[in-house]
């Protein structure tokens, strides 16, 4: 895959949507830019991605059980909806409606 990128004001690099989707980047993720044999290579990562660093305490042990503390309330958007969305996404992937699982 190739795509043109644009330097925005303040030396920020603007990634086209197709690049973001290809690398599965979300807001706050880290990318690494490498200069290699006359080319510039962009890859996901470069240390732990910011998106994987929880706002809360992360993985903790509570009453003998490992649990993940994201630091943010899930609220009414509960885990039943998460599971449904995950199943729907998989179905779309296996039926070819989307390219990424």
């Amino acid at each position: 895959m190739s795509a043109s990128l644009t330097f925005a004001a303040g030396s920020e690099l603007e990634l086209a949507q197709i690049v973001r989707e290809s690398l599965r980047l979300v807001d706050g993720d880290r990318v690494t830019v490498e200069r290699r044999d006359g080319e510039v290579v962009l890859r996901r990562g470069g240390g732990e991605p910011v998106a994987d660093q929880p706002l809360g305490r992360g993985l903790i042990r509570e009453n003998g059980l490992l649990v993940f503390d994201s630091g943010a309330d899930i609220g009414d958007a509960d885990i039943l909806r998460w599971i449904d969305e995950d199943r729907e996404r998989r179905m779309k992937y296996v039926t070819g409606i989307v390219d990424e699982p």
Partner: protein
Amino acid sequence: MNFFDTSVLVSASQRTDRRHFDSAKVLERANKQEAACAAHSVAELFSVLTGRPRPHRVGLEAALQLVEQVRDTMQIVTLTEGDYFLTVRDSVRAGRIGGILYDALLPTCARKLNADRIYTWNLGHFRGAAPDLAARIAEP
């Protein structure tokens, strides 16, 4: 034997979920002699935990530890080819269509174990998919 649905495993893993404490309470007592879940739920747990957007997305290493915790504290039930076809046949006889078949696979695992109690946060789906087990299906 207690059988746990994916919804309970996910909820117990996410401390900020409103159902977390009830889910965690039933899982704190889990051990391989008395607790089980479907192998399919292990995959779903990992997929849901790592597939959410920030801030709820769980990092890969943390997700692995949460999945390993499930492996270490309960039996993981797998289905045979025959179990799958039996579940499909039962769904056909009951007139159930589409994705509800997936819901029926988990009760098939619970049935194999003759589970006394099936814990889920999705009572409607489970009782709909396995009316014969309705009396054993409960929220944590």
